[in-house]
């Protein structure tokens, strides 16, 4: 057991890729970054949302994005990158048009998540933390995404793809690659990872009304209670 190196949240590299200086950040982005900073009692609280916005604009945490955040918040670029490199959702290298995640935490892994990940890897020809050469897909191994009653779970652009099977996953990836419409199990029609990042930054896309209220598993207990005539007790003195 030698070769013990401390692994950061970004196992692939130590820091943000400073060599790629390209950016799409313009005055509109700067104004939106300032708007985010203005939403909080103390502006630095906006840093996480601001980094989500940077990703939606640049497809990753870009050096220019780090500078923009530092400038707006009046902190150093080192402080910004220190935060950017701590959280797994921030990418040092560009994400795909669609960001695919497969949950391989214990429960999903055992129920088929490991096999699912192998299928997705084979289908896309990439491993986790990689991107397809055409930039359509990036892939990630997820930790539990709070949907274990729908295991095995896959996420596309942080939308739920519940009760996955290898066949369903392959079909879904083919549809996305062909630009066909794909609906999340509990969510909206799939757009793109960058559009998702913009919503996470705090700029709603007006699509909250899409999709169901809940999945079948979420409604199981309520359905059984209804069938059995079970309910919470009536409050004392209630006229109902």
């Amino acid at each position, binding site marked *: 057991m030698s070769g013990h190196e401390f692994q950061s*949240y970004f196992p692939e590299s130590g820091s943000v890729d400073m060599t790629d200086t390209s950016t799409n950040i313009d005055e509109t982005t700067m104004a939106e970054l300032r708007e985010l900073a203005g939403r909080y009692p103390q502006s630095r609280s906006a840093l996480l949302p601001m980094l989500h916005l940077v990703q939606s604009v640049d497809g990753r945490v870009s050096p220019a994005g780090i500078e923009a955040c530092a400038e707006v918040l009046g902190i150093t670029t080192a402080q910004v990158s220190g935060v950017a490199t701590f959280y797994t959702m921030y990418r040092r290298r560009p994400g795909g048009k669609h960001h695919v995640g497969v949950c391989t935490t214990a429960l999903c892994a055992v*129920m088929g998540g490991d096999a699912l990940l192998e299928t997705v890897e084979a289908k896309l020809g990439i491993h986790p933390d990689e991107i397809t050469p055409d930039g359509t897909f990036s892939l990630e191994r997820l930790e539990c995404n709070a949907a*274990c009653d729908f295991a095995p779970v896959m996420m596309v652009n942080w939308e*739920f793809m519940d009760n996955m099977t290898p066949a369903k996953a392959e079909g879904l990836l083919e549809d996305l690659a062909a630009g066909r419409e794909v609906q999340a199990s509990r969510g909206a029609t799939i757009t793109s990872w960058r559009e998702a990042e913009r*919503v996470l930054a705090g700029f709603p896309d007006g699509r909250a009304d899409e999709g169901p209220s809940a999945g079948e598993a979420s409604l199981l207990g309520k359905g059984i209670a209804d069938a059995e005539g079970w309910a919470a007790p009536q409050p004392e003195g209630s006229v109902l």
Partner: protein
Amino acid sequence: MTDLLTPVLSANWGQDHSWGIDAYRAQGGYDAVAKALALTPDAVTGIVKDAGLRGRGGAGFPTGMKWSFVPKDNPNPKYLVVNADESEPGTCKDMPLLMASPHTLVEGMIIASYAIGCHTAFAYVRGEVLHVIRRLQQAVAQAYEAGLLGKDIQGSGYDLDIIVHAGAGAYICGEETALLDSLEGRRGQPRLRPPFPAVAGLYASPTVINNVESIASVPSIINRGAAWFSSMGTEKSKGMTIYSLSGHVKRPGQFEAPLGITLRQLLELSGGIREGHELKFWTPGGSSTPILTPDHLDTPLDYEGMAGVGSMLGTKALQVFDETTSVVRTTLRWVEFYKHESCGKCTPCREGSWWLVQLLKKFEAGHAVDGDVDKLLDVCDDIGGKSFCALADGAVACVTSAVRHFRPEFEAGYATPAWELFPYGRSALFPVAEGGHA
């Protein structure tokens, strides 16, 4: 005798457009805000105290008592922060609640904020749940339009703003002090206590941090009364709560029941273990709560019942595994989770979780050597209780409890790979080529 299931929080989840303000109001939503604003803040806290509501985020601390710790004479603003980070493996109750009925949380936040004298409240939602965040953003916007947020709420003179904040992927940010650092725009690493958040939390100001389900329970308590709430549950674990059943059961899902229901009862409701299989082990409240076995099927799922069998109620995330499952494999996966999520602040957890992974990989591959089980427990002993926050204790709990109940299975790792003892394909829900393992 109360019914076996008592949907309150989940009662409206199946309704058409349940997430919209119209549907919510049509079933009496926001009535509790009007009731609460007509009372004094202390009276509201008193009702929540009398109800016996305990925190649903894992620790079970009495919610009303937590609110009463906020010092009244502190000149700083007070803050309410709702913990919607839900990342404990197995835990999947807060996200469906927020997706189906975000207004229940918003209403609870208004009442809780009023009770503690806060004018800016935050909902910190894990980032990896886009549609949940959409629904909550929209609910907050609708509440502003309806005059339920903002200035002079419903003519009461009380002002409140709510900010929906998306995290960025870090389990540790569910730990309440790490959450505060994260919400201040820093790396999410836990803070030393004291001072406790009630005195010096967000921006060093008095702060109450509560789980989604805790706050979402408040409107029903205000509407129906403390006595109603405490008529459900057991002596020290009051009220209804959401149990999440996942894994090798016929029908996984969410069950809202009085505290104290048993796994046997929940399994009966869900149709039992999948066809042709039997229960092997389970977690009562996420992977950080020591695993249990069929011996504990009849132990009440409340705070005391679980403590009595050496585990914890935690988040009531019941992950169920049948006899096809390798305990070594699941333990390794859970420990890999903790290693990945360790914030790196303190050495026992950062380094220890790495060593645990290395050791468990040897067990999984059948390459462990005689004595390695004790070494595993030794490393656990170097981590548990010696780290900065409870993340490390969770990492250790899943290992020590697995060894306690299934030591021979670990010892088998001295000679035989786990995937030979328990061909992994058999645990999956769909056919998998045999021999396949990660």
